[in-house]
């Protein structure tokens, strides 16, 4: 039976497929929220979507190589300049920076200024990967600040699995920070329509799913 509700155009979210991650959880989360998920590496499909996610688990150099091989760098840049919501998760977040020294120095997408570094460069005492539920704290808690994700509570736990962290040049894009082994690192950035999470919203329970909804709902 077709209802008015089901005939409504669903919001389409492109999940960029570049052979670098378990994208099923993200797809499941997007589907659960009632959006239409498109797992794709097709330029047209990506650009037509209402929102896009760059996922990623694995190594930075390999990920960049796959993005080049699949000619995905231009579509990502065009999508971002369209002003529609774009979210990088974990490695997908790190790829948005200028370069990483994971395994070898590799240029990233350079959407944000700053570098990706390994926790073990700070001290070999720090255990990597950083795995588990950790607090994220909002960077700006001033009362006159317009919070882009007001449903995110300050000091909520989210799920992390990573060995590298981003060190942004511009402080004002830092949305949350997280402490690990006595070091505070950037756990998310937001700049206009561009979102980047070091943690996995698709593995962070109802709160994580809620963030995805807040980013992509119209």
């Amino acid at each position: 039976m077709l209802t008015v509700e089901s005939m409504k155009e669903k919001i389409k979210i492109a999940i960029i497929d570049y052979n670098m991650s378990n994208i099923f959880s993200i797809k499941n989360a997007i589907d659960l929220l009632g959006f239409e998920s498109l797992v794709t590496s097709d330029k047209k499909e990506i650009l037509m979507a209402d929102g896009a996610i760059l996922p990623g688990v694995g190594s930075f150099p390999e990920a960049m190589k796959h993005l080049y091989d699949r000619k995905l760098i231009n579509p990502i840049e065009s999508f971002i300049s369209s002003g529609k919501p774009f979210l990088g998760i974990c490695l997908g977040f790190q790829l948005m920076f200028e370069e990483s020294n994971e395994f070898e120095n590799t240029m990233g997408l350079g959407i944000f200024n700053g570098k990706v570094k390994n926790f073990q460069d700070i001290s070999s005492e720090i255990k990597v990967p950083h795995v588990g539920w950790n607090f994220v704290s909002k960077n700006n808690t001033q009362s006159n600040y317009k919070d882009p994700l007001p449903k995110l509570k300050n000091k909520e736990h989210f799920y992390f699995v990573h060995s590298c962290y981003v060190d942004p040049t511009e402080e004002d894009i830092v949305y949350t920070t997280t402490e690990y082994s006595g070091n505070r690192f950037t756990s998310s950035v937001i700049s206009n329509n561009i979102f980047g999470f070091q943690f996995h919203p698709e593995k962070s329970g109802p709160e994580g799913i809620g963030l995805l909804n807040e980013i992509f709902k119209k």
Partner: protein
Amino acid sequence: MSVAVRIIPKLDIKGPNLVKGVHLEGLRVLGKPEVFAKYYYEQGADELFYQDVVASLYGRNSLQEIISKTAKEIFIPLTVGGGIRTIEDISNLLRAGADKVSINTAAIENPGLITEASNIFGASTIVVSIEAIKQADGRYFAFTDNGRNSTGKEILSWAKEAELLGAGEIVITLVDSEGTGKGFDLEIIKKISNSLSIPLVVHGGVGNNIHVYDLLSYVPVSGIAISSMFHYNTIHHLRDLGGYEAEGNIDFLKSNRSLSFIQNTSIGQLKDYLIEKNVNCRKHERKN
């Protein structure tokens, strides 16, 4: 410590059913795993640990279907074990939606599998599971197939070896206390924890909130896997809603005989208790 302690419901699976035994034996059917899993998710579980308890015996893994269904509505890390023997087995489970796999028998028989899997999938994906049974001389040895077969490996050295081979996490089941609700042997857990630099998850013996707190204040383990205490609470909860129909041995549950050592506590209640005691664990907006 900045990472929260993980409270992990462990779901032993036989065919399509959730089962539970004592000392890993005498399995009884409790119901449908998806019903329990959903309740645990809503109550704030930090991870779910699925174990196919007969997979190793029959050399198969039937969990794939359950995992892919679970991953559609449950958004926390899923760890899956039982009958994993090859890289392909691991790859299939990850593709079904598992985040980590737990290996016991195959890791003992072919330790090289740990290294190979860790290199391919990343150490954080590979969990080595150890079933520990105390011997007459006080030492603990590793067993396989739900405590049936001795491996001749002493657990402290085996856990360390697994770490060096590339395991990202160790799950230790204390078979002597498993399913009894009588608490843990804290000394052996401390010894294992001190010898490892990777996360340690402990299973087998939790009967009440105090057992959990006592363990955490004595040894800061990364996670605690709990079955009986949460399963019985779930059954009570479902009965209250009138939605519980056991397909299996319900007389056992009705009699409550074996449950005298086990407190009726939900994950939410356990977490409230731990947070009150200043333990860093994840708080979650629960449906009640």
